[in-house]
Each structure stands twice: as C-alpha cells, then as structure tokens.
C-alpha cells in the first residue's frame, strides 16, 4: 500500500444517520397495522411514505455535513 491510502478514507459519524432509515423501514412489525390512520390512509401506507421524505432529509443532512 502506498502513502495515499492514509489520507483517503475519512469516516464520518454522520453516516450513522443512514442506519435510522434502514431500521425504520426494514422491520415490518413497526408499521404493519391500520391504526392510527391519517385521512383515511392506514398507518402502513402513510408511515412508509413519510419515511421517503424523512430519508431524503437525512440524506441531505449527511450531504451537507460530509465531503467526498
């Protein structure tokens, strides 16, 4: 390995924000239910649609907090 390796990988703790959305949407027991419904839409559906927006916001936060 040459010395360029040393300054390459900058791990950022901000990346952990991504984990939140993985957990929130990959564990169906969290959201596989009808109530509370919103505007007549069962929880199952509006919860996941809401996470599309939250996920985009989290990604934007990581984008501004880190550099490539």
């Amino acid at each position, binding site marked *: 390995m*040459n010395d*360029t*390796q040393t300054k*390459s990988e900058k791990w950022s703790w901000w*990346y952990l924000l*991504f984990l939140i*959305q*993985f957990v929130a*949407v*990959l*564990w*169906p*027991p969290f959201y*596989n*239910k*009808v109530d509370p*419904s919103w*505007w*007549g*839409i*069962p929880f*199952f*559906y509006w919860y*996941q*649609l809401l*996470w*599309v*927006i939250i*996920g*985009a916001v989290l*990604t*934007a936060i*990581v*984008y501004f907090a880190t*550099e*490539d």
Partner: protein
Amino acid sequence: MQDVNWTALIVFVLLFGFITWLGFAAAHWRKGDLDLLHEWGLGGRRFGTIVTWFLIGGDLYTAYTFIAVPALAFGAGAIAFFAIPYTIIVYPILFLAFPRLWYVCHKHNYITAADFVRGRFGNRWLALAVTITGIVATMPYIALQLVGLQVVIGGMGVSGTGYAGDLPLVIAFVILAAFTYSSGLRAPASIAIVKDILIYITAFAAVIVVPIQLGGFGKIFAAVPTAKLLLATPGANTTGAYGIYATLALGSALALFLYPHSLTGILSASSGHAIRRNAAMLPGYSLMLGLLALVGFFAIAAGVANLPENAEGFKQFGNNFAVPALFLHSFPSWFAGIAFAAVGIGALVPAAIMSIAAANLYTRNIHREFINKNPTDREEAQMAKWVSLIVKFGALVFIVFVPSQYAIYLQLLGGILIVQTLPSVMLGVYTRWFNDWALLIGWAVGTVAGTWMFVAANLTPNYPLAIGGFTFPGYTALYTVILNLIVTIVLTMLFNAMNAAAVDETVAADYRAQ
C-alpha cells in the same frame, strides 16, 4: 372488442411525435463528437445535477414499474409496497458507494462496471463474468418495457389480429432505435425531462382527482379486502410475509445500481457531487411511486375489473390493465392520452439507456477485450451503435414471438443474477482485499445457486429457506449474494496465503474528488 379511443390516441401520437423530434435534435445538445464512445454512450459525462436527476429518475422508475407496482397492489395488496422501503434504502447505498465509482471511472475513462473490475482486479475473466451478467440481466428488462408500451396501446383500443396487432409496437421501437443510434445517451436524457414531467402530472392528478371521485381515502381503503390491506402476520416458526417484504426491499436495493443502465446514468453525471446531491433529490420519484402504488387500490375501489368495457383488456393483460382501465374510467379521454403517453414515453427512456448500456458492455468488454484489441475510437463508437440496434431488435422479437410471461420470469431472475456482481463492483470500490479468482468463484456459486433456487421456487424470486425447523421465506437475491460473499471471503484468505494478487491499476486517490 373495444373501440379505438381517438381523442386519447391523437394526444398520444402528438406527444410521441414531439419526443421523436426531441430525440433526434438531442444530438446537438451539449454537442460532442459522437464518434467517441464516451460521447455517444455517456453523453460526454457532462450532465449536471438537474439533468442527472431527470435521467436517473427516468431510467430507474420505468414504464413497467408504473404499470406493475400498482398492478401488484391491485392483485396482491400490501406486499406491493415493498417498492417503498426498497427505494428509501437504495439512496444511502447510492450516496456511499457510487460517487467513488464515478471518480475512478472518470479518472481511467471506464465506461462500464466491467471496465472498472478489469482495471481494479486485473482479471479479464472476472470482467467477462460481470459483462455477461449485465447483458443477460438487461435484455429481459428491455423486453419488459415493451410490455408496458403494449398495455397502454391496448388501453387506447388499438388492437389487431396476429402480428398486425404488434405493428404500433414495432413503429415505436423503430423510432426508438433510430434516435438512440443517432444521438446516443443525449436522446433519452432529453426525453426523460418530458417524460418525468408528464409522469408527475399524471401521478398527482390521479392521487387528487380519483379519491375525490370515490369519496375519499377512507372509502377507498374500506373497499380493499382485509387480506390485502396489510401483510399477513407470520405464523409460528417462520418469518412469513414480513421476511419476504424486508428481504425483497433490501435485496432489490442492493441490486439496483449494479444494473448496467443504472451505472450508465451515474457515469454520465458531470461530477461525484452531482450524484451525492441526487441521492437526496431522487426520493422525489419514490414518493411518486408510492402514490402510484395506491392507484392499484383506487382501481379496486372503482371496481374497474367488473366493468364490461374492460373485460377484453384484463383478459389480455391481466392485472397490468388495472391502471389504464382506471385512467380511462376516471379521466376525460384527452387526459388519459397524456397519462398513456407518459407511460409509453416512459418505456422508451429506460429501453434506450438499457440498450446503450448493453452496447457499451459488449463493445468494451467483449469485442475490445477478446476480438479486436486495438479499435480506433471511431470503430469502437460505431460498433456500440450497431450493437444497440441488435439488442433492441432482439428484445422486440422476443416480445412479439414469446409470451410476455417469460420476459417477466427472466427479469425476476435477472435481479438475482445482477446482485452477484456486488462483491467485485460495489465492494470493489472500497477494497482491493478480495482475490480476483475468489470473486469469480463466488460469483459462479451465487449464480448457480440463485438460478437453482429460482427454479425450485417455481420461477418465483422468493425461496423458503429452512434452517433447523425454522423457515425464512425471502428474496433469493439476498440469500445468494450472502453465500457468494462467504465463498469469496473464505477463498480469498486461502488464495492470498498461497500467492500474490493480480495488478491493480487504480490507486486510492482515484476514488475521491481531486
């Protein structure tokens, strides 16, 4: 037999005419020398954040998606919504791995994933495996776009007996082939902008207008049978529908950006920054996809399956007819024409990008590697143009002569196959630790096991994995890529202990902004 809906058809043809002109005019957009492969096949890597957003959005959220996801909701219910967690978690993956791939590909003028693997691991056979997997996974995907096109053409009442019935499809495809040949990636990039705007208009109109007509979301969901409303709660000793749902989402997310057409979209961006920004902006499409999935439930509530005028369509296209039937039922004909044009044009954009991606793969990683090692730039670009034609006509012949169900099976299998390139491509951008032959053997094991499980599960992508009396039904792609990784890691340790690795032509600094 259904009558031809002339108003819808005229709107459709007008919009189609417009994008045909646009596709040819695109050759002059951000003009470059189309005799260079990276100009023809990657649009000169000059697309900024916004164009990339339209291009990747138009590329990934295909016509077939817009037909098939609501159709799955219509037929099977809640399970169709796996598309939402799938398209949520795919963007962190895009954000973390793919800017690095962009940088290294830009630096070394790599055009395909196989180019990268060839350079990174120095093994032409591993690169060939990545190439063949990419082409095999892409071909049925192109054919599926035609299924989407067929459904909307059928929805307008255009039909015929025998092969005459396929004439509109053939015309659309000749147009597609011609502008892809002449303009390269610039054609789908410019058309994607029109297509995406039309799709957004259609989706939001549907989600606002139809619930008002049907008396609100409460009434719509009340009309959905209870069994379809939620995932079935798993019984004892199994992860049941929960496991299927989560593994489908995760496995699909891991596979998505390994598809050649996804990578073509990524590599055509002007910077790694544009890709990072897009990871936060592309969820706009996921939101729309989620709303469109609900349209499947609208179709249930509107009872379109029981209307006599739809009998023919459902007989011919099955549940895929649910969305066109609902649009015809709920909207005036001119707006149905716009919606159908959105889906129809939405078929051409990914089909064009997929054929370009397959052509790039053949040209770079088969022809140049094994047949003509020193082509001129012009010969290379010309070869890719011809191959893009061959690929498209192959897909057309397939869809005209073979039942479309086979294209669907092959596309499902394609997802299982493409994910096997994950260790060499997606993990390859992080580490050179893997041994090239270990990667190749891991790929082979994953491919064979995945194909076997797919067949064993009666041509479905979910395999009931049984471990000690406990059953984990889940997406074969996820199970087999884990197997692939285990084999690769074990063999790497073995091979690395035996001898030195092949040459890596990239260095760590190539993987980030300079």
